[in-house]
């Protein structure tokens, strides 16, 4: 994932500081990557970045909506027969009524324009199977998934940072242990991991409830299941980054200043290695959304993943399209935030 902003990241002089619109609360960065002087985060840079990003976001959303619509049109078979499924006793009258209600007799172009028109008004349509507005369904199911994703993210980041900081550049055996658990957690299917955790900690030893979304204890196992594979990947990337950073001259300088090993790792090397980590977060968001489908099923949690699974298996296209729009929005938001984070982490990127 390369961002458009990072392409402007070539060597820059120290001119950013004398920009007219310096933010009063602009972030002064202490000890950046070493060579250049401190750059200030100027208002113009941020405004331009945000504006460009917003335009791109609209384009991405339009693309997602169009792709979803075209995919729906390309599905073979009669949409009404698809909605009803193979074992149905629905009468011809019922079929005609469904066709009429969904406006399937309209020309495709009109259907597309109507669809876009409704989207503009924030109307994601009406679920075929659940008979509810799609926006309400997504709205209701969003919180449990956000909770799960945040909990999993916390698990992943904490585990990755601890594992990487503790082992990077250390003894070979220690590193081997760390890469081993990372490899195992990355290669374990989350589905199976979930069943294993449930069997051990809910069926055999009753520490956690089997399923559901009642309170914190029901969140622990799902968050671990979703977070562990991500932690594995993040840990590997972070350690790699740390090890590269630890070989840099500024680390030697810091050591020469008498800083402790931990301070060097936590304050200097970790920051340097974070850029790679942040770049990965786009991929990470995808993992969490996709993983939520499996994890929510195994743990019988409500949420967007469970909704998606139900919609796909009951051929509920408006809900599927709603989820596509939501994922597009999540990706756009996250990559925007990531790009802004680059500016915060790496002063070299703050060129005008």
């Amino acid at each position, binding site marked *: 994932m390369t961002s458009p902003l990072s392409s402007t990241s070539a060597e820059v002089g120290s001119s950013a500081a004398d920009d007219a619109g310096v933010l009063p609360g602009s972030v002064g960065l202490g000890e950046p990557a070493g060579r250049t002087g401190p750059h200030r985060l100027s208002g113009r840079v941020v405004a331009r970045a945000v504006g460009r990003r917003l335009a791109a976001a609209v384009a991405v959303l339009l693309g997602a909506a169009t792709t979803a619509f075209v995919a729906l049109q390309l*599905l*073979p*078979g*009669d949409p009404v*027969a*698809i909605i*009803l*499924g*193979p*074992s*149905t*006793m*629905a*009468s*011809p*009258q*019922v*079929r*005609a*009524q*469904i066709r009429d*209600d969904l406006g399937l007799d309209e020309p495709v172009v009109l259907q597309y324009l109507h669809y876009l028109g409704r989207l503009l008004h924030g109307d994601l349509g009406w679920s075929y*199977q*659940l*008979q*509810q507005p799609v926006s309400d*369904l997504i709205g209701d*199911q969003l919180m*449990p998934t956000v909770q799960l994703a945040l909990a999993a993210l916390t698990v992943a980041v904490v585990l990755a940072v601890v594992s990487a900081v503790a082992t990077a550049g250390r003894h070979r055996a220690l590193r081997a242990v760390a890469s081993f658990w990372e490899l195992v957690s990355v290669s374990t299917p989350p589905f199976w991991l979930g*069943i294993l955790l*449930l*069997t051990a900690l*809910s069926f*055999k030893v*009753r520490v*956690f*409830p*089997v*399923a*559901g*979304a009642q*309170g*914190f*204890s*029901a969140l*622990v196992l799902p968050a671990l299941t979703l977070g562990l594979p991500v932690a594995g990947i993040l840990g590997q990337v972070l350690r790699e980054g740390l090890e590269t950073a630890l070989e840099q001259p500024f680390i030697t300088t810091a050591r020469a200043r008498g800083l402790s090993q931990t301070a060097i790792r936590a304050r200097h090397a970790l920051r340097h290695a974070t850029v790679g980590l942040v770049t990965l977060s786009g991929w990470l968001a995808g993992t969490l959304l996709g993983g939520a489908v499996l994890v*929510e*099923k*195994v*743990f*019988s*949690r*409500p*949420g967007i993943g*469970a*909704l998606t699974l*139900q919609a796909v298996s*009951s*051929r*509920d296209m408006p809900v599927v399209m709603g989820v596509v729009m939501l994922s597009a929005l999540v990706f756009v938001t996250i990559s925007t935030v990531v790009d802004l984070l680059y500016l915060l982490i790496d002063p070299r990127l703050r060129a005008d």
Partner: protein
Amino acid sequence: MRLARPARLTLITTATVATLALSACGSSSGSDGGTAAGAAPKAGGTVTYALDVEPTCFDLQVNPQGITADIERGVVDSLVTVDAKGAFHPWLATSWKVAPDLKSYTFTLRDGVRFTDGTPFDAAAVKANFDRIADPKTKSQYAATLLGPYSSTEVIDPHTVKVSFTKAFAPFLQGASTPSLGFYSPKSLTRGPDALCAGGSSIIGTGPFVFTSYTKGQSVTLTKNPAYNWAPQQSTHTGAAYLDKVVFRFLTEDPVRTGAVTSGQVDIATSIAPSDIRTVEADKNLSIRKLQDPGGSYAIYLNTTRGATADVKVRQAIQLGTNLDQIIKTVYFGQYQRSWSPLTPSTPAYDASLENSLKFDPTKAGKLLDEAGWTGRDAQGYRTKNGKRLTVDWPWNPPHTREQRAVVAQGIQADLKKIGIEVSHPALDIGAFVALAGTGQYDLYDFSWTQSDPDILRGFFNSASTPATGGQNAANLKDPQVDEWTEAGAATLDKAKRTELYAKVQRQVVLTDAAVLPVYVPTKLVVVSDKVSGLTVDPNGKPLLYDLHRA
């Protein structure tokens, strides 16, 4: 470990609930979950019931899913009940008269029945419900078929109602005994389809339980209707239900359901995988109930109008060339029974004389294929005729294929290969699958069907019920005798006559027409903890929560 503290707080609450449940069971070990002898059951308590499927919509009048009816059997009552022999008994109707031409049924309704919103249950309520089901705008996918050729409902007086049909319709009483033709409060019917579909307090019936809440992706809670006093006579008690609360939990993963019931986190779990039965058997606190679904067996329908299967000899060869006994025993760990008829044994008019009629006989199957002219062999060992390989198409759609049926198909494929038939078994997406199915472009087609009336044979084999017109005659059978018998069966209430007619249909389609290869009897393996007892299941296969209580 700062995280541990909040976790433990919640844990204590969960543990307390579990201990209460445990202490409530006290000394009752050894009862097998049937009707407890001795002292009257204690009222009160909660039962947690794990289900394998979550309904997409809770409106019984629209939604065709069996699971919706399972959940709402405790919420809505029906006009009549049916017993295991197929005889009807009063429920919300105290008596009824059937017109000699079977075109109208007049019911006398029970006095003093109220919906849980206070609305009285009367003739107008019956009319409002049936009219809504029959209205094409309701888009009823299943309940409307139970009303068949419905024409109208007439309110004769508040306690008398006459339901009329445009032609003779014998299966009506059977339909009227199912939750799908149960009654919602006329007030709730005006709330709009989205409110009813969403479940929760919009679903208002007259039943022993009130639909209190629904949390999507998680659970449904029913609470006791204290005013309930109109249970059917077959129940073991009168008045309100024993339990205060029934919680249905949606645990869609098989191992999770098994784990939940073996660890005591739920009291009842349905649809346990046959492979998990040994784990459950090892647990002395659990009992296993095998519930055979009434209706259509899981069967393979052989297309009588297309390709090689248009020849009856090829169809017979397929019937005889598959070693189903072995396949079913292996795939389902001996838990499911092989089926011999398109109907399951728990369906009224099931013809038991068909049992063991299709013995595995590859030699005879080979001879039949020789007679049909498939005498050549190609390099792969498949039979050929005029240089063309003997191939049968059997498309399938993975999301709609349950219970390891794909593995059964592999077994059949391997057996038929031995007698020289190639089975092409492509996995298709739903759109492509439905397109092929609707136009009859297949040689084999498989399904099972839950509905407790032998009239389903009319849907399966009557020539007017082809898939192109939305029917289930997947074999595209056109047999004038089968047409005559299935139509005569729908036009009489005489049990002996119906039994005779439907027995003839079953024998004809299996033995003479070879239009169907019955595979196995769909069976629900329900695991019940010894902490609860009194769970019964009606002949429609629906769980009855009314007599259920904590042991």
